[in-house]
């Protein structure tokens, strides 16, 4: 582990045993995030991005379990932390903006009270009034008027609820922020405000961000490096510019080709033929093989090794 690595994931396996088998949602994933960087995490719906994020906080939904691997945060293994250690760790060291605001916010409490609770759990000496004021300040940067803190989650619009989640993730100034699809409900103007705020927090607090998003526009704009997942595995990882300009993995190439281009009037959007793999019974060999335009015989038999191509990691036999 190098000096400036804040998070290092080593050979992580996460599974969901369900009635019809075991979902291998994260299958032997290794990833290092450097202090102060924005790491973009992209990949198809259902490929395991949220599961990876939840594992870092040990917040997997049941019946999810970490079957093997290490998650080192500043050198400490999260996988072996006690519940007590986790309480201090979550929110304070690492916080997460959840993908589903409606189920993550408590419908019975006013939004402001939920902030006060979160702040005072970690800083019991802060008075409720101060905590409320701090929440107001954070949310004001996101275009939420202070008086709205007195409302309940169901009284807010989708985009407001998402900004409440963002505020909750930021208010404790964590070292690492996991932002899981943080802008899906935001219009471009609010999105720009949010990205501005992230940039300011990066400068002020050297915030590190794992940005999970299918919005390749904001990933391109924010991320220093990008990791691409497919079928529970990392298929490509490298500097954002390199990944976007010159994607090496056939999946990444297909993904980038299907972005709707607003400047063109397209009659039909390009799609990738085939369906995502079933993670209960993933194909042997390369998980992308059934859909890959460049598939070779070897691909169907042996799981591709990871190859280093001038600073990029690519798991594909084309580069053997």
């Amino acid at each position, binding site marked *: 582990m190098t000096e400036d690595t804040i998070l290092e994931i080593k050979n992580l396996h996460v599974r969901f045993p369900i009635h019809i088998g075991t*979902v291998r949602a994260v299958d032997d994933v290794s990833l290092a995030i450097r202090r102060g960087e924005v790491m973009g995490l992209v990949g198809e719906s*259902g490929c395991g991005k*949220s599961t990876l994020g939840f594992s870092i906080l040990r917040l997997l*939904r049941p019946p999810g379990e970490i079957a093997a691997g290490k998650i080192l945060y500043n050198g400490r293994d999260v996988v072996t932390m006690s519940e007590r250690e986790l309480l201090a760790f979550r929110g304070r060291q690492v916080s997460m903006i959840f993908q589903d605001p409606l189920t993550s916010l408590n419908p019975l409490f006013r939004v402001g009270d939920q902030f006060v609770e979160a702040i005072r759990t970690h800083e019991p000496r802060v008075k409720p009034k101060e905590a409320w004021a701090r929440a107001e300040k954070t949310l004001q940067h996101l275009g939420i008027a202070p008086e709205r803190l007195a409302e309940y989650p169901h009284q807010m619009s989708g985009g407001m609820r998402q900004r409440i989640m963002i505020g909750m993730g930021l208010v404790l100034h964590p070292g690492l922020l996991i932002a899981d*699809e943080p802008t899906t409900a935001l219009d471009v103007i609010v999105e*720009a405000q949010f990205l501005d705020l992230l940039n300011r927090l990066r400068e002020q607090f050297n915030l590190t961000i794992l940005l999970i998003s299918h919005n390749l526009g904001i990933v391109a704009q924010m991320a220093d490096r990008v990791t691409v997942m497919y079928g529970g595995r990392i298929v490509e990882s490298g500097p954002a510019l390199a990944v976007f300009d010159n994607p090496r993995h056939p999946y990444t190439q297909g993904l980038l080709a299907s972005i709707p281009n607003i400047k063109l009037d397209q009659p039909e959007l390009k799609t990738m033929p085939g369906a995502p793999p079933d993670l209960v019974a993933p194909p042997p060999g390369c998980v992308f093989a059934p859909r890959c335009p460049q598939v070779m015989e070897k691909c169907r038999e042996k799981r591709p090794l990871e190859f280093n191509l001038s600073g990029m990691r690519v798991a594909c036999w084309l580069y053997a």
Partner: protein
Amino acid sequence: MNVPPHETTVQSGALLRIRDLHVHFHIKEGVLRQHQATVKAVNALNLDLFPGDVFGLVGESGCGKTTLGRAVVGLAPVTAGEIRFKGRSIVGLEGRAAFERARAIQLIFQDPYASLHPRKTVCDLVGLGLKLHHLAEGYEIDERVLAMLERVGFSIDHMYRYAHEFSGGQRQRIALARALVLHPELIILDEPTSALDVSVQAQILNLLKELQREFNLTYLFISHDLGVVRYMSNRIGVMYLGSMVETGATADIFRQCQHPYTRVLLSSLPSLDPDAPHRGILLEGDPPTPVDPPPGCPFAPRCPEARDRCHVDKPALEQRGDTPTHLTACHFPHLA
């Protein structure tokens, strides 16, 4: 896609006709919740949808898009105004009439998590509507469910899994399948692809277009993604603070939008180029609150072009330029 029908021939041909709609919520304000206040989430809104329209509805967070959609299906309180579906009023429907509307008009919720029962299998969730509305029976239900699931990118392996076992984007597709399988006449899609990556999104958008052509469906398509709206819609409506401020054919809006707010929206289009300069005109002024909308033009407090008249006189949504189908609520519109 067909040419947008003439907006002024509304009376006859509209599938959905909304006039002067108000949806107000009463809330208690202040830390001690001592004041009573009214949130005017939808405020004097007009809209016509024609059969076969894909109407893209855009506008800032909190401007009332979801509330409008919910009002159409009877899930938000209509304070005043009129909503007609095929000529008949559908405000305050109950019993049998409400049940029939539930098939004819489907709403796909913005929050796919909250709208699916976690302890039901996908097959039950998607098949329930078919059963309730007597559209299929027995084995045929499973067949139709599977056929629809396959079109949204699932396989038979997923049929008997529970909703809570799916990822965000997968649940969004289950919600879509559940609505589409009923072949409703009007579908209100509230951010239907926001949780999907581009490749799955492309697949779903193409499917929606296909079904739309196949069955001449009408969509009210709510999205903050202008690229998606442009791709999908033949007409676009821009909402601001509870009111419609501009509507017109998609091509007209993108060629020459007339309302200052629409111009701000379109200026902030995202780009994939990481070197692109910081994008967008950031709006000055406080974010609007629908608790106390201004008396004149709703956009006046933030409008870079506001003049005295704007603060007192509310502009009507009407034709301003040469195109009769292009309506704008602004006293000083940008005309070509």
